[in-house]
């Protein structure tokens, strides 16, 4: 990895190998010649830039690496070595056997009970990707409610009689939890059933300070 090699890509007389090919650059693996040439052309500019390129200092190489991905995204990818334009699923990757695919794919339908409603509903948590979506869906299901964000706690309100409902859920351990504390995915994995509890009954469940999970959307 000496800068010398990078600066003067020699051609080996014996093997006819162009050492440009073996040059250690931050070009993405398996990319076409033209991309590699772009990178190595830059390497002829000067020692310091070469060092940046080859020894991988963070910022310049990072942006270079990224822009290469975007550039390549458009062009037709050869059989190997190019990152796909979009993160499409690759056959047989990651290398897990198919019986492991279904690890977490147990039923994600959960019952939703509303205090005072004559019957329950079921929702498939997998169809939502955030708390906001779930609550909107619940709002639609029990059409009398609107979502009201009170002090960052999510509550549903029945505008007709002014009753507030707090969404709670039962987790895998059998405990009743307030909806919204944990990251969305963790919630989906641990939620067994949902209950919209009347606010008046929710004493002790609602946290003293507002729920702050920034990542949960």
């Amino acid at each position, binding site marked *: 990895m000496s800068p010398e090699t990078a600066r003067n890509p020699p051609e080996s007389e014996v093997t006819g190998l162009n050492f440009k*090919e073996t040059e250690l650059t931050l070009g993405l693996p*398996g990319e076409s010649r033209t991309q590699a040439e772009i990178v190595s052309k830059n390497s002829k500019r000067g020692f310091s830039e070469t060092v940046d390129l080859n020894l991988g200092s963070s910022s310049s*190489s990072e942006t270079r690496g990224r822009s290469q991905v975007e550039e390549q995204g458009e062009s037709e990818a050869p059989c190997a*070595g190019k990152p796909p334009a979009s993160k499409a699923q690759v056959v047989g*990757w*990651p*290398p897990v056997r198919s019986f492991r695919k279904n*690890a977490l794919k147990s039923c994600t339908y959960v019952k939703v009970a509303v205090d005072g409603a004559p019957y329950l509903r079921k929702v498939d948590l997998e169809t939502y990707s955030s708390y906001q979506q779930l609550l909107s869906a619940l709002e639609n299901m029990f059409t009398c409610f609107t979502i009201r964000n009170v002090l960052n706690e999510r509550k549903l309100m029945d505008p007709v009689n002014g009753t507030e409902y707090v969404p709670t859920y039962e987790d895998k351990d059998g405990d009743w939890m307030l909806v919204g504390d944990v990251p969305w995915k963790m919630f989906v994995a641990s939620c067994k059933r949902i209950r919209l509890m009347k606010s008046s009954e929710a004493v002790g469940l609602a946290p003293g300070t507002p729920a702050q999970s920034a990542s949960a959307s």
Partner: protein
Amino acid sequence: MDSKRRKDSPEEEKKRQVLPFPDEILECVLGFVKSHKDRSSVSLVCKDWYTAERWSRTHVFIGNCYSVSPEILVRRFPNIRSVTLKGKPRFSDFNLVPPNWGADIHAWLVVFASAYPFLEELRLKRMTVTDESLEFLAKSFPNFKALSLVSCDGFSTDGFKVIATHCKNLTELDISENGIDDAGGSWLSCFPDNFTSLEVLNFASLNSKVNFDALERLVVRCKSLKVLKVNKNVTLEQLQRLLVQSPQLTELGTGSFSQELTLEQYSDLENAFSNCKTLHTLSGLSEATSLNLHLICPACTNLTFLNLSDAALQGAELAKLLPNCPLIRRLWVMDTVEDKGLEAVGFSCPLLEELRVYPAEPFELDAILGGVTELGFVAVSRGCPKLHYVLYFCRRMTNAAVATVVKNCPDFTHFRLCIMNPWEPDYLTKEPVDEAFGAVVKTCPKLQRLAVSGLLTDLTFEYIGKYAKNLETLSVAFAGSSDRGMQYVLGGCPKLRKLEIRDCPFGNAALLTGLERYESMRSLWMSACHVTMNGCRQLAREMPRLNVEVIKEDGSDENHADKVYVYRSVAGPRRDAPPFVLTL
């Protein structure tokens, strides 16, 4: 008793008398030599030893079913009782090999039926086995004892009906990880009432309900049962009834662990697990709730292998469980335990030798949350200096972390790191992860198996070629910059036996560099690389003792060799190749 040889001529007999001890004694002594490598060495000493070895061998292991033919096998070894056969290339586990590729057991069974009528054991991996073959097996070998099918296909549970009915001396039925048609669980009822010899029963990977009454009666009457692994359809309540009947179990695979139990049921189960004093392996536990997880604690005192890869535990649950298992040597978990869970492993498992962390959501492309990272890896290495086998699926890794891990655990023999997004660089520095694997091969001289991933240039392979002198198996995906990468490996790793490559920029030059190597290897797999048909043809031309096969995909470029499988063989080209496999 072994069958007798024909009489030797008088001259040969005289020659023989010069030997320090007669052949019968040599054969007897060699009977104690079990390892295949040792037996191979023995057979190379001289003709007499070769002869003695072949007469005394009772177990044969064939790593590639196409490397030899059944006829050649039975001609050399007349007294085989146990056969282990592996078929398809390993990447077939990940759907890279089209169906009906081959590796059908039937032709072997036909030859065995006449040459080895006293065959007792058959262990198959990645082979195709039809129900007809299972029936043929059950009816052709009266002494048949042990059947093990791992990652096989082509059969249904109907095939087990015949096995259960006809194999009167069956001791082992081990079905794992197969893609099969589950035609229901009535096969368990086919074991006759006077059948009591079963010692190993593993049907954990089957999906259908089984007849529980039949299962219970089977467990009751098979007093020698040591290994019992049931499937998810067996409830906790049912498990309790089985455990009560079989406290002598050494390996247990539970069914579903999510049932809501009454106090009484819970207490009964606690007692049942307390009675399992000899358990050393535990698996299953699917959908285990925290509450139910505690049931296993009394059975964990002597546990050496805990397989939690079907139980999506959280870190805290694992942390509570592990202190009950002080003797753990092998631990398999799902990445739902996250780094916190792995920290607990570092604290609680000082004897740990093997760790596997499987991804709960492997195909979740944009997963940011969840899973394990480089931190968990380092945490384990700090607390588990004896760690020598790791399989680690993660979404981020750093060069520094891996260097730390191998510094803490220099005895790695198997290092399989899978950074799940292809071409993923070092998470902190954004550099390639060349130095990570460089550290592995430089620090771990005993390394036998390596799987690489992440953003890798040819430098990784230069390191591997230079330092990994004991490497036998190498798996590469989405890595390397040029032919040089593969050339470094082929030029450098003297003990390499299996090389499997996918989606790398290695072409004909790289393929042909290995001309001299492939005959000393079991096989080479290259898919979605830059190899062409002409390159393969050239390889086939120059190395006639290799089988060079190309699997052609529909609609691919005529000249491109989509999937290449090269292996040494004394049996010549395959006679059963399907139309999409071209033998060059």
